């Protein structure tokens, strides 16, 4: 029922973490202190502070987190600007979960997984990566390649350094676009770095980041021998309803809000070039 679909739940912001100069991560629970609703990795939710409007965000926390949800939100427009201005204790509206999740229980199971993210693109992948870490034995080797403009723009860097880097059979490669004082790691763009690392093309790749990064990274992966049926990404278009009725997030006959946001590369190839 759309009254349940369009009418949001009230959430309370219990923690705000500043990740980067323009990204904050908001921890949200219901007014009863419990998690608002269950979701699957890659699904999204409509978040708003009433008065300005709603926007769709990926749920960055893993479904295996039983206590709360987290949203990593980059300040880049009217709605996100207001969200960035709130304090802990603020009540917000949340509705969802929306969309098709990453096939963690189907296609990903038993596979070696390669996650490639750029900037805020880590947010949707974090839910999958932490899901995979939770059910570690169900998955093979994990490689994460993550790049951002600068060292200050790497989202969730503490979790990456303190937790991900200590996992077994789990490799993390970080890169930043330009040299920076105090940064001893790799410098360069994600697509080029991906080609340098020496990746096994039999891995299942999951990409998320700016369109330009996806385009060149995909090209690189195909050159390395990856097949499109083993590469997943997410699309992002303007949304209002989240349930395939308001008519604006379509690419061809697919609505990103309900048929996506997760698509396999060969599925994207079938769509008209308008995303």
């Amino acid at each position: 029922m759309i009254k349940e679909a369009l009418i949001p739940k009230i959430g309370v912001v219990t923690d705000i973490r500043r990740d980067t100069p323009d990204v904050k991560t908001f921890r949200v629970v219901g007014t009863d202190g419990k998690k608002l609703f269950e979701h699957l990795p890659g699904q999204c939710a409509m978040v708003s502070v009433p008065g300005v409007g709603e926007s769709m965000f990926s749920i960055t926390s893993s479904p295996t987190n039983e206590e709360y949800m987290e949203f990593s939100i980059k300040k880049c427009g009217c709605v996100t600007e207001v969200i960035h201005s709130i304090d802990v204790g603020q009540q917000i509206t949340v509705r969802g979960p929306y969309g098709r999740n990453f096939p963690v229980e189907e296609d990903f199971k038993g596979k070696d997984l390669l996650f490639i993210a750029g900037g805020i693109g880590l947010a949707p992948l974090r839910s999958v990566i932490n899901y995979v870490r939770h059910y570690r034995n169900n998955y093979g080797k994990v490689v994460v390649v993550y790049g951002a403009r600068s060292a200050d723009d790497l989202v969730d860097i503490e979790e990456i350094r303190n937790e991900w880097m200590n996992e077994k059979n789990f490799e993390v490669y970080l890169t930043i676009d330009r040299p920076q004082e105090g940064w001893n790691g790799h410098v360069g763009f994600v697509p080029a770095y991906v080609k340098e690392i020496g990746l096994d093309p039999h891995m299942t790749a999951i990409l998320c980041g700016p369109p330009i990064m996806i385009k060149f990274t995909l090209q690189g992966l195909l050159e390395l021998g990856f097949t499109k049926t083993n590469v997943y990404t997410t699309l992002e278009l303007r949304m209002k309803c989240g349930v395939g009725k308001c008519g604006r997030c379509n690419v061809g006959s697919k609505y990103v809000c309900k048929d996506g946001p997760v698509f396999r590369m060969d599925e994207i190839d079938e769509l008209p070039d308008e995303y």
Partner: protein
Amino acid sequence: MLKFKIDKLNELFDTISAETPLAMPLEKAGEADYGRYEKGAKPALGVLKTVKSPKDLFFPQSETLMKFKTEGKNLAVEAPDENVTPFVLFGVKACDYKAFEVLDRVFLADPVDTYYQSKRNAATIVTLACSKPEESCFCKVFGIDAAAPLGDVTTWMDETYLYWQANTNKGESLTEKVRALAEEGGEDAVAKQQKATREIIDKLPFSHLDLSYFKENGTKEIFDRPEWKELSEACLACGTCTFVCPTCQCFDIREFRSAKNEVIRYRCWDSCMYSDFTQMAGGNNRTTQMQRYRQRFMHKLVYYPENNGGLFSCVGCGRCVNKCPQKLNIVKVAKALGGKKHD
């Protein structure tokens, strides 16, 4: 079959509207549009095409979705009352009636849109057969018979009578309320009018438009046709076509602070013809009018049918043909892309 003398029609409408709200085409400022009938109103049943379709009886141009009460950092949501008073929608033409089916497949698909559903269920729909279809009509292309519309009740009108045929239980119960004003009979007159109407329709210029191209070719092939550029060049992005269209269903959700402690969130019709329709903080996937124009027709002729068992999201009402200030319309698109069949 029942029939009502034409000079008894106001009595008929007064009788219906005394019990339930009645919406029908009314004359307003020299134009005909659906509105609520009240005693003394001027029915416009002789008008072939109302300016707007009756879709806003179920999907209003603007409607409140919910209100928020804000108090410091706290919030409360108030959902509007779902109960809609039963009403009669009178005078719906066959094309506009078919358009409800097109809208139903969007709004009643899972998850059901209860705002739409509650109004849809509250309506008893009385259709009115066309007797004077004109050049811009092409409902026949979509398998619609303008001389025999569906609905809870079907009516036909000539110079002397309104003929009345109940089709459903809802229609029967409405009939009981007005039976005292009616006489029996009319089958012959209706059959005669239907024959004449169908003969006119068969001769209309767009009645034999061939849409098979859109069924027989792949989405990308149609999407990539170079003709879109030329077809869209005159488009002013005024959005008139989308607002008069009985099947256009795109909406926006917006909100405003109505009082210090209150926010109203509402939805309103929107148009894929507008540049901000797909505008995000991070970019826009349709930056040219060609892309927006193509989206509208691809949706009606390709995307919607792909998702709905081949049903086109056009009913041939011809409003866009009449109303587009630049004389652009779906017929031109179908002819330009449909190949040599139309030469």
